[in-house]
């Protein structure tokens, strides 16, 4: 009987057309993700190459002034996307993941963006996470909207009720057939993605797959709940589509508008101005006060000569550093504000399956806002290491030739990847169970 119903479902031509269309959309999205990854890879290779050329050229011209040389030299710090980023590009196209930093003030450098076409960013990425969160629900709706109403409108429902002891079982059977088909489509896309992009099967990939399957189940639960309200076919279609419009179109916009209007980030601008003023005004101030402030933080450089010639690189880099030091408080406030934004969005997103899935996909792929903030924070440590390495050479005016320049290759940022399973799974599981349970109760009360 089940087998028969299954064959009956997949024999339909429109089902196959829908499956082929969605399979094609999924494939396109995987290829777009792969393209994105290749572009990032190319940029990383190009920066690795050009860093050597860049250092070589400057070292050739500026042979005997270490401090002047370091004014120009840039060192790349790279947040390399994991292969799974191809399946959830997230905010990675907005946020630059290669920083080329000099040892001068950090705050003036670390928010520099990449060059991009804003129109591309606005239309967004057609990646697999978009296909799953926004398009898959439509397939599920198309499969389910008339499961019950068709029987009733076609006059076959009394027959079903007579022949089958449990009408509920009949509906669930039909839904489960559709669920198997959609899951098979999802699984085949995930396997293809794994093969095409070369994603390692690890906790992250597992988490991605689990979120995707749970999300699909939630949409089946939503369909079930609305089906058992016993409305007509077109009302069902209307209700299910309204649910889709609400969850995939309006709710994210509502949350986002609220966050944007509620949490402006003026701290970004005050950081910008503060760091400029902090550094530049030092030119007009007493050298001693600048250097004492600098030595307070870095007592190990106290013994270098700084008060002899009118211009001295110890003074110069101390001024640069004071710009950062004076902007630090503003920069910290800015990051706090950004974390607040991220938290509010994530918390609001918890209650709605589409937003939760989308944010979790990005978290798993390390392409979300929290991960970018981690990367931005870690640039401070990278910059500090860089400065501590070069400061003695600058202040002691080492010979440029004595430095082993080839060792200065780009450094990679490694995000701590820990999948928080409970936070990941629970909201979807909970929503699914509640909706499904409500459906069962409704149907039991009114099995008409």
């Amino acid at each position, binding site marked *: 009987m089940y087998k028969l119903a299954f064959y009956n479902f997949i024999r339909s031509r429109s089902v196959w057309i829908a499956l082929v269309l969605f399979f094609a959309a999924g494939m396109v999205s995987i290829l777009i993700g792969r393209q994105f990854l290749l572009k990032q890879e190319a940029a990383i290779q190009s920066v690795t190459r050009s860093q050597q050329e860049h250092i070589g050229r400057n070292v050739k011209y500026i042979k005997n002034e270490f401090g002047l040389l370091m004014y120009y030299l840039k060192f790349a710090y790279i947040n390399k996307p994991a292969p799974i980023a191809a399946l959830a590009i997230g905010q990675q196209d907005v946020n630059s993941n290669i920083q080329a930093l000099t040892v001068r003030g950090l705050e003036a450098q670390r928010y520099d963006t990449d060059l991009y*076409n804003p129109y591309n960013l606005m239309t967004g990425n057609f990646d697999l996470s978009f296909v799953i969160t926004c398009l898959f629900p439509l397939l599920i709706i198309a499969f389910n909207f008339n499961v019950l109403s068709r029987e009733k409108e076609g006059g076959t429902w009394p027959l079903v009720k007579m022949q089958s002891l449990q009408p509920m079982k009949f509906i669930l059977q039909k839904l489960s057939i559709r669920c198997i088909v959609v899951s098979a489509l999802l699984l085949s896309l995930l396997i293809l993605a794994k093969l095409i992009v070369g994603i390692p099967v690890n906790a992250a990939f597992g988490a991605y797959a689990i979120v995707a399957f749970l999300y699909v189940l939630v949409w089946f639960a939503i369909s079930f709940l609305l089906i058992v309200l016993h409305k007509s076919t077109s009302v069902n279609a209307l209700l299910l589509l309204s649910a889709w419009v609400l969850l995939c179109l309006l709710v994210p916009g509502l949350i986002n508008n609220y966050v944007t209007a509620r949490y402006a980030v*003026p701290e970004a601008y005050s950081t910008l101005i503060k760091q400029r003023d902090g550094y530049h005004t030092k030119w*007009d101030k007493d050298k001693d006060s600048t250097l004492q402030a600098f030595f307070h933080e870095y007592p190990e450089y106290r013994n270098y000569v700084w008060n002899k010639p009118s211009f001295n690189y110890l003074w110069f880099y101390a001024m640069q550093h004071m710009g950062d030091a004076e902007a630090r408080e503003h920069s910290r406030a800015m990051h706090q504000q950004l974390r607040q934004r991220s938290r509010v969005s994530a918390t609001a997103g918890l209650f709605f399956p589409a937003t939760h899935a989308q944010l979790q996909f990005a978290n798993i792929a390390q392409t979300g806002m929290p991960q970018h903030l981690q990367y931005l924070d870690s640039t401070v440590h990278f910059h500090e290491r860089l400065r501590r390495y070069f400061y003695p050479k600058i202040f002691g005016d080492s010979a440029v030739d004595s430095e082993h320049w080839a060792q200065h290759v780009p450094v990679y940022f490694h995000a701590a990847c820990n999948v928080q399973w409970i936070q990941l799974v629970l909201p979807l599981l909970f929503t699914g169970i509640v909706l499904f349970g409500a459906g069962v109760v409704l149907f039991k009360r009114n099995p008409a």
Partner: protein
Amino acid sequence: MSNIKLIAVHFIKTVWKGKVIVPIYLVWLALVLYAVFTGYATYTRQNEIRKEYQARARQSWEANPDKHPHRMAHFGSFAFRVKHPLSMFDNGMESYTGNAVYLEAHKQNTANYSEASFSTGLLRFGELSLAMLLQTLLPLILFFLGFNAVAQQRENATLKILVSQGATFKQIIWGNSIGLFAVAVAFLLPVLLSTLTGIALQSTTTADAGLFIRCAVIGAGAIIFLWVVSVLAIVISAVSSTGRSALLSLLGMWLMMAIVLPKTLQAIGSYVYPAPGKIQFQAAVEADILQQGDSHNPDDVHFKKLKDSVLRANKVDSIQQLPFNYSGYIMQEGERMSAQVYNRHLQQLHTIYDRQNRVSYNAAFIDPFIGFKNITMAFSGTGFSAFLSFQQQAEKYRYDLAQTMNVLQMKYISNKKLSSTDKPYSIDKSHWTSFPDFRHRYQSVNEIIQQQWVALVALAAWLLLSVILIHFTAAKATVI
């Protein structure tokens, strides 16, 4: 003629009597209110902040004591992008463009701190603006209200009766389209009203905002767009055998035109015309500048030649004898050359972006949704060209600032080298205040029309097509 009127009135009555219109309209009003309140709050707060920081940056610029002008060229300035009042109506791509840029000598910085860089992935679902409600949600609502118009009459055979009583298909389609369009206007009104109220509440709109004509174009665009959508709904309903199949066709069309096509076309554009990233871009600029001459390199041929010719032209044989400051002159020359190279590369980059975007612009002929969106963005001052215009203004200001400081150096700074005990050269601080602050100007409406004529023509073409479509469908339609 009276038949058309009768049918239109009948359509409106049917919608009005249906159970769904009241809840849909209430939800619509709530969304419009939410969009306009958040849009208004964001607009006023952002402009307040940006103006405040522009002023603060200026304050510290003017607070500089007497000093060497080149120090001021490095001190630099900032350009903050001021939002256009109509950004309350349509955010466009503004969330993805930088809002502030640091302007200093020798270096073109990127505009940073875009809203998107402060946002989570939720932004990527799309923002809830008044324009988005008109472009995406309202067509869906109209498709819902219109799909049954003719198809249901065919299904329950009232269409036969209607035609046998003397109504022609032309009248039926015109009548229903007008009826649906009237409903659409009822949805449009609160949007227009709240936009105008939001603008009227602004005490500080500037004269160059061109508000009247921008609003007029957007309003006319919205009316044409909604008419086209109404006709599409009715025409599909008229050619479908059942209401259900009409609904499915319309939903498929909506999904294609509102969601899938805009995304995929832009992806195709950027795939076909690949643009370099920042690293490749900067490497190319650096290579060209080095080829032209490197003012840092003491052995550089270009600058050696320059020095010789300057000395010859002034009939002197050493730099010290020149009537102006030579290093100021060199920096002026260096800034000019590097800016020229940079701008050439930037122009090339923008040409690539433009080619990418052309795919979407031209798609307005197959997808009226895209065309309408391009129009609302451009005329709300939140489109691609508005951002380019800001970038150009900022770069021009940067260049003027650097060159003004170079001229001051040439004029007032001596060529004589100072010993380490001398007081460094400086000029009076009144020069800082006399250099004007940056002020972001909106694009002129003429410029926008020049850039968006394709979208305007496409929308006009759709208007024409809608009439043709009605006649074509009427000729082919049958009662069963």
